[in-house]
């Protein structure tokens, strides 16, 4: 286990280094820099040069990268010149928004996928199966921004069920908070359901065809026991992996939904950083998301290992 962790973590470090070098190089290479950002486009070349040397931007890129890297390993992501604040402060402010819709949409997607996936497998080739196949295709073929806009128009403006923009932090009332993230989470969930539902259905069908299901039926157990105790237990391993991967992907994938619903989250911050060429902000965001994705993937893998008693028992034996 320790060996495994060590391997995974050293691999993660390699990935992070590579991502940071590539991102840094690309950002150096495109025109525009922090001095330009601070002074505006009508600044004189002399003033720009002076500010550049004051900020150390005239040094070779690898020295600048080295400075940034030193900061990064001590959890200092540098400063955003656009906001005049620490990048980590900016992330901390916006993280709750993004995490809220990511977690909430994952919960919605998981519940719907598991329920429909099981039903679709048990009642193969019936109406339930066809409905969920339809939902699967809808989710994976229609773009999120379109569903987002449609839901704003119908559920928000017409029916007025949900607010259509803005974020209410939980401190200002839990119901209002849930309401403010409900629509974006649902929109995001639709995109997640396709893959997850397919995985649940497939692994459930596989479980149902196993010999041990024959035995469970021969014992005359109730349908509930047969499906939940016997079938679902072995059918949950593959979907757990998918849930983890999709969640990791979600954290970085909220850009569109946050823009459509005007939510002040990480995704919007990325857009701003790109538009304004805020190099350190963008670099910090990219590194933060990469770290998060890697960490979640690792946690999910470990969790899935623990679902499987075989690995659990073998580890106790070590």
């Amino acid at each position: 286990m320790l060996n495994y962790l060590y391997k995974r973590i050293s691999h993660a470090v390699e990935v992070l280094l590579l991502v940071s070098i590539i991102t840094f190089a690309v950002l150096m290479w495109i025109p525009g820099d922090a001095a330009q950002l601070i002074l505006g486009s009508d600044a004189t070349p002399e003033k720009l040069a002076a500010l550049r040397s004051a900020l150390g931007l005239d040094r070779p890129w690898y020295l600048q990268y080295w400075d940034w890297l030193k900061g990064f390993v001590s959890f200092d992501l540098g400063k955003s010149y656009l906001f005049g604040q620490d990048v980590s402060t900016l992330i901390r402010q916006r993280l709750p928004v993004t995490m809220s819709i990511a977690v909430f949409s994952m919960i919605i997607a998981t519940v719907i996928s598991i329920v429909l996936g099981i039903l679709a497998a048990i009642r193969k080739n019936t109406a339930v199966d066809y409905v969920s196949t339809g939902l699967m295709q809808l989710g994976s073929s229609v773009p999120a921004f379109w569903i987002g806009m449609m839901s704003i128009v119908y559920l928000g403006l017409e029916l007025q069920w949900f607010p259509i923009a803005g974020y209410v932090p939980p401190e200002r009332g839990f119901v209002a908070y849930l309401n403010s993230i409900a629509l974006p989470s649902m929109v995001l969930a639709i995109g997640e359901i396709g893959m997850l539902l397919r995985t649940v259905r497939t692994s459930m069908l596989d479980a149902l065809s196993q010999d041990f299901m024959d035995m469970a039926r021969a014992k005359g157990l109730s349908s509930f026991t047969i499906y939940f105790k016997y079938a679902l237990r072995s059918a949950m391993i593959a979907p757990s992996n998918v849930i983890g991967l999709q969640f990791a992907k979600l954290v970085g994938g909220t850009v569109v939904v946050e823009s459509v619903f005007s939510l002040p989250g990480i995704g919007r911050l990325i857009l701003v950083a790109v538009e304004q060429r805020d190099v350190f902000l963008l670099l910090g965001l990219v590194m933060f998301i990469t770290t998060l994705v890697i960490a979640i993937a690792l946690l999910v893998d470990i969790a899935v290992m623990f679902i499987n008693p075989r690995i659990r028992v073998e580890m106790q034996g070590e």
Partner: protein
Amino acid sequence: MGDEKLLDIKNLTIKTGSGRVLVNHISLDMEKGELLGVEGESGSGKTLTAKTIINLLPENLSWEAERFQVLGVDYLKADPKAIKSLVGGRIGYVPQNTGFYLHPMIKIKDQIADGYVLYSKSSIEEALARASKLVGAVGIKDTERLLNSYPWQLSGGMRQRVNIAMALMNKPRLIIADEPTTALDSTIQKQVVDLFRAVNEAHQTSVLMISHDLGLIKYYCQRILVMYGGQIIEEASAGDLFAMPKHPYTKLLIKVIPSLNIKRGERLEEIPGHVLEIGKPRSGCVFKERCSYRQDICATEVKEQSLDGFHTFRCNFDI
């Protein structure tokens, strides 16, 4: 009503979705307390017949019959719920040891007793105490440790013994055991068979045992059915069958095996001819391709003969 009869099946036919006939008009019945043996060629339809009785025929197959009563429940009329509780509560099934019939992610103690808790309305403690006793009875020493294991921590023989113990949990009135002793060494084999017999004597439990092991069946069963190509080709009391086998296939089976203690597969090379391809549309005798007594008539028809009403066989001759 099935009154005295435990099993009353007439003209059972099992087909695939595409119409291939796998089991062809077989009839069998069993009395209360009877020990019935089923012997036959590999692929002759023994397992499918057993699975029909416990209502677990694979989805791609279907069956039909003129009469099909198990413990007085008429499968042709009863609702699925009644059949389910009959199978779970009063029939014990020992599956053929070719698959993995225990759930790999659930401890033995959590799967051996759930059927008992459901049908005997007992507490989990009582159920586990019974499980422990039965597992001990099939020759497992450290029962505590066994119950706390996962199936993949056990050998094939151990798992088979767990299956046997599980089949006995509900004090079934009928045990269907599909080659229950194949993975076991000979002392354990005898122990298992003796256990079945003890249960049979104590509770009048009937046992339908499928086996390739003629020696075992002879030692243990009162009546024997011999299957070939989806049909029952001979049926007789154990004594009669071994004293005067009538069907050429049965004769070969008994003659060719000197020790009466054969292992699976060995027999096939020794009986002349190739294994019958089941399911092809055919007429006449199922054994004609491999039979040394064959005449022209065997290609078109086959006679059903009976010696005394109890010993029956399907052959055109009496040799």
